[in-house]
């Protein structure tokens, strides 16, 4: 659970809610929370199992919300911790520690065991950290140690899910064998069963004796839940089940003990319908309990990345402590195979670190002194030490989890319709069941009832059924066959899978609306500097005037020596390149920077020049032999500098902001996906065109000042385009905000400060394509799920209502209706699970190979003429 300040008075909190099964549960929890004075807004996401609440902390608090959720039959998985608190005395210390700990927001309960010096605290672990609780107790003068028996909310949630699976497994083990026996006994008068079973096997009393424990055992949950909801004015799926099971069982009991009561007599005992109905619903619940957990696997994977222990240096000694007790500034020791416990900066040692769990990048990243390390990543080979810079909720992994959780708890615009329908579905179905009953009672039965009426896929003949029994049967079948669960699950389940899948690849969607919006994007604007290019100049060409006189490396070494003391970015790029090539860079005896022209230096008593045409012409250096080459390079958008020594031309050095390795591939991929790609830059038109030709964008917007970027985005929107803007989340914030979808690229570990709807952890433009692909794929799943869910209900409900009866003389049996209903919601979940194996095309093998291959621009970038 997470809490954020919304504005001056209101706060936002995300509360985990366990035990919800359908869209009606969502409405129940939303209604219950909205009913608390001080709650401004409550939004519940079924798949994520989370409730996002905006509330006024002066009026209500989190424990009140948790207890209201629990009151209506759901659970709020809380963490608990057992602390060994030394120095406590009974009778006094509980009055000291208790109020102090209870005073922390998020603490639900505190209990004391003085015999074992244990304080047990139940708390909502995203509102308050275990470390804060320990700190408060320490602050009261006690010595506190973690007893190591605590369970965080993830364990608790898993435990609850396991409990649910165990409960439904137990229900299955009871209901299926009994339901099968009841069905066999029901049909015991038919061939070949009649010859195999004794005469008493079709005894209605026997069927009653078998079915009754089933109805009040595994079936009891439906009656209890629906009653709990009804008396608070809310309905859920359980009500449909309870009505269906109750009606089938009630009629059977009446016809067993009062066969002449007119309810169809002994031929109309639907014990097998009640029994199979329970069995199928329990099967559906069991399958959902298993598969629902899998759709939230991504977030679970992220959560499990947070290591629990850390080895730190305290007073010069190594000490293993809980990771949540590491403080900023601690020196943390990491050995081969260790998970990195908190964020920090390497101080000594060298290793390679697997960051794939954060960035999706499969190749380990080398780390040495000065490099940042991220909590949750795995150290591979070497050992190193680092200084903790961010701990607890500030860590990148915590921020990522928060972002993904919030995205999963949010609702996409497409979900609004589904929610409206699902929310009123149950009442609608009951109203329809009433209408169907009235119709068949007063009109349908007289018009079409035939003595040869059968239940679909059964040998049952309903000859003895009278008007009430028939109308009731059809009415009950309508209740059973409808499945609002599928409608309610369709969008959130797919959104959850999509946002989770994005997180696996370092693509963080800030909300379900971002997923929907990115799937509709028509134009992608890429900021040139820092997005398509590296954002810092580097040497692209070194061309000697006469290779017989001076080699390219000699030209570069001369240029670098001139610039050795320069702080100009172009000079720094030349020095950097020379260093990388291992060239000897001499210290100039004299150095003079000439603004707007270049530099003049004295090297070994010889005058050297590095600068533009004007500098050379001013000093009388003949550059005529190099002009053509210089113009060619300038047409490629590069800055050309002439190098001269002793008044003679030595060569050219070209410097440019180079494209990132994947830029060409990314633009190609985006265009292949049918998107218009626009490059936005402050450069002049010639430089911009040169880059644009290399990356093959559709359109260039050059000479755009930083403050005008948002206006350019707006212009494209006014042309009717749905625009995604890709840029630096900090500098390009206004343009990202203006765009329909803002994509902040290369945030690395610092995801919190980024603006934009989508955050790309890696500095790779290909991830823009991947984000669009994940968005499109997710929305395709949403549409498939919605079509299935709505389609199923639209087809199944009329069928159950007897629309085909006048033609076929067959009606849907309650047990067949139960089977179809269970399969409907199961199929939506299964369809969503297909996302698990999905890999965005831009992150598949061939693209990765293409990414590693040199691009056309790279050829020019490494071009050296010697």
């Amino acid at each position, binding site marked *: 659970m997470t809490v954020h300040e919304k504005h001056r008075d209101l706060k936002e909190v995300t509360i985990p809610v366990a035990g919800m099964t359908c869209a009606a549960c969502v409405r129940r929890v939303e209604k219950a929370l909205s009913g608390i004075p001080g709650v401004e807004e409550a939004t519940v996401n079924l798949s994520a199992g989370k409730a996002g609440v905006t509330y006024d902390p002066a009026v209500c608090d989190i424990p009140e919300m948790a207890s209201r959720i629990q009151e209506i039959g759901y659970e709020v998985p809380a963490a608990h911790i057992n602390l060994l608190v030394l120095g406590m005395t009974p009778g006094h210390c509980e009055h000291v520690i208790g109020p102090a700990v209870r005073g922390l927001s998020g603490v639900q309960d505190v209990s004391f065991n003085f015999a074992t010096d244990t304080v047990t605290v139940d708390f909502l672990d995203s509102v308050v950290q275990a470390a804060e609780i320990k700190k408060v107790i320490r602050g009261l003068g006690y010595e506190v140690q973690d007893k190591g028996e605590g369970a965080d909310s993830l364990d608790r949630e898993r435990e609850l899910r396991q409990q649910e699976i165990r409960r439904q497994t137990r229900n299955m083990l009871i209901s299926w064998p009994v339901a099968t026996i009841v069905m066999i006994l029901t049909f015991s008068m038919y061939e070949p069963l009649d010859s195999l079973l004794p005469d008493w096997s079709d005894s209605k009393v026997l069927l009653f004796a078998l079915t009754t424990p089933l109805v009040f055992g595994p079936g009891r949950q439906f009656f209890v839940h629906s009653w709990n909801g009804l*008396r608070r004015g809310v*309905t859920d799926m359980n009500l449909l089940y309870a*009505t269906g099971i109750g009606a089938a069982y009630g009629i059977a009991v009446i016809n067993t003990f009062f066969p002449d009561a*007119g309810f169809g007599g002994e031929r109309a005992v639907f014990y097998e319908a009640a029994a199979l109905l329970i069995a199928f619903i329990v099967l559906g619940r069991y399958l959902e309990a298993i598969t629902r957990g899998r759709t939230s696997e991504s977030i679970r994977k992220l959560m499990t990345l947070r290591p629990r222990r850390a080895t730190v240096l305290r007073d010069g000694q190594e000490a293993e402590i809980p990771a949540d007790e590491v403080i900023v500034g601690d020196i943390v020791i990491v050995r081969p195979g260790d998970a990195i416990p908190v964020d920090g900066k390497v101080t000594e040692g060298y290793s390679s670190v697997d960051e794939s769990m954060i960035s999706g990048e499969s190749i380990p990243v080398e780390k040495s002194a000065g490099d940042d390390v991220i909590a949750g990543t795995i150290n591979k080979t070497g050992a190193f030490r680092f200084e903790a810079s961010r701990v607890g909720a500030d860590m990148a992994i915590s921020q990522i989890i928060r972002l993904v959780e919030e995205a999963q708890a949010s609702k996409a615009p497409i979900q609004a319709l589904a929610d409206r329908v699902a929310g009123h579905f149950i009442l609608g179905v009951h109203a329809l069941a009433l209408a169907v009953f009235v119709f068949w009672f007063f009109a349908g039965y007289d018009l079409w009832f035939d003595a040869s009426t059968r239940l679909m896929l059964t040998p049952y003949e309903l000859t003895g059924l009278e008007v009430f029994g028939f109308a009731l049967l059809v009415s009950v079948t309508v209740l059973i066959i409808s499945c609002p669960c599928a409608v309610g699950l369709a969008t959130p389940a797919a959104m959850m899978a999509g946002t989770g899948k994005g997180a696996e690849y370092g693509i963080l969607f800030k909300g379900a609306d971002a997923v929907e919006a990115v799937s509709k994007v028509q134009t992608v604007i890429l900021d040139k500097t820092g997005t398509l290019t590296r954002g810092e100049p580097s040497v692209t060409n070194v061309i000697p005037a006469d290779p017989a006189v001076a080699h390219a490396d000699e030209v570069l070494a001369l240029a670098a020596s001139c610039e050795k003391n320069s702080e100009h970015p172009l000079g720094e790029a030349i020095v950097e390149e020379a260093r990388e090539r291992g060239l000897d860079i001499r210290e100039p005896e004299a150095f003079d920077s000439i603004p707007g022209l270049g530099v003049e230096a004295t090297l070994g008593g010889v005058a050297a020049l590095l600068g533009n045409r004007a500098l050379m012409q001013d000093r009388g250096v003949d550059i005529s032999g190099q002009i053509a080459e210089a113009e060619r390079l300038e047409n490629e958008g590069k800055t050309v500098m002439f190098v001269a020594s002793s008044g003679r031309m030595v060569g050219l050095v070209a410097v440019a902001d180079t494209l990132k390795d994947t830029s060409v591939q990314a633009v190609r991929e985006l265009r292949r996906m049918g998107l218009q790609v626009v490059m936005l830059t402050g450069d002049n038109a010639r430089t911009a065109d040169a880059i644009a030709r290399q990356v093959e964008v559709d359109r260039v917007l050059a000479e755009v000042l930083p403050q005008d970027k948002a206006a350019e985005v707006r212009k494209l929107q006014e042309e009717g385009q749905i625009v995604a803007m890709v840029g630096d989340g900090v500098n390009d914030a206004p343009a990202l905000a203006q765009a329909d979808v803002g994509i902040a690229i290369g945030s690395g570990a610092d995801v919190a400060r980024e603006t934009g709807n989508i955050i790309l952890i890696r500095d790779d433009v290909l991830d823009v394509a991947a984000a669009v692909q994940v968005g499109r794929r997710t929305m395709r799943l949403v549409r498939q799920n919605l079509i299935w869910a709505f389609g199923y209900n639209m087809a199944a409900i009329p069928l159950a209502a007897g629309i085909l009866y006048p033609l076929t003389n067959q009606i849907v049996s309650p047990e067949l209706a139960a089977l179809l209903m269970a399969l409907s919601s199961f199929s939506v979940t299964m369809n969503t699970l297909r996302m698990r194996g999905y890999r965005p095309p831009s992150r598949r093998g061939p693209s990765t190979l293409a990414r590693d291959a040199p691009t056309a621009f790279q050829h020019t970038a490494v071009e050296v003429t010697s």
Partner: protein
Amino acid sequence: MTESNVSRIAAFVYTGVSVASAAIFLAVTLAGDYDWVARAGGAFWVFFLTLIISMPTVIPMLRERVRGAS
């Protein structure tokens, strides 16, 4: 108006609506050729379904009205 008052009034309203529906159903059956089991059973089923429909409709509606008035 207190929460318990709202619940009491709501119970009165939805029970009344359900009884009225069942009574209308029963009255209509009197005009036709139905046995008493069908009439009573049908009236009960109509009462039951109407109760299920009206309970979650009436309770929040009254609560909203009370909240709006306070």
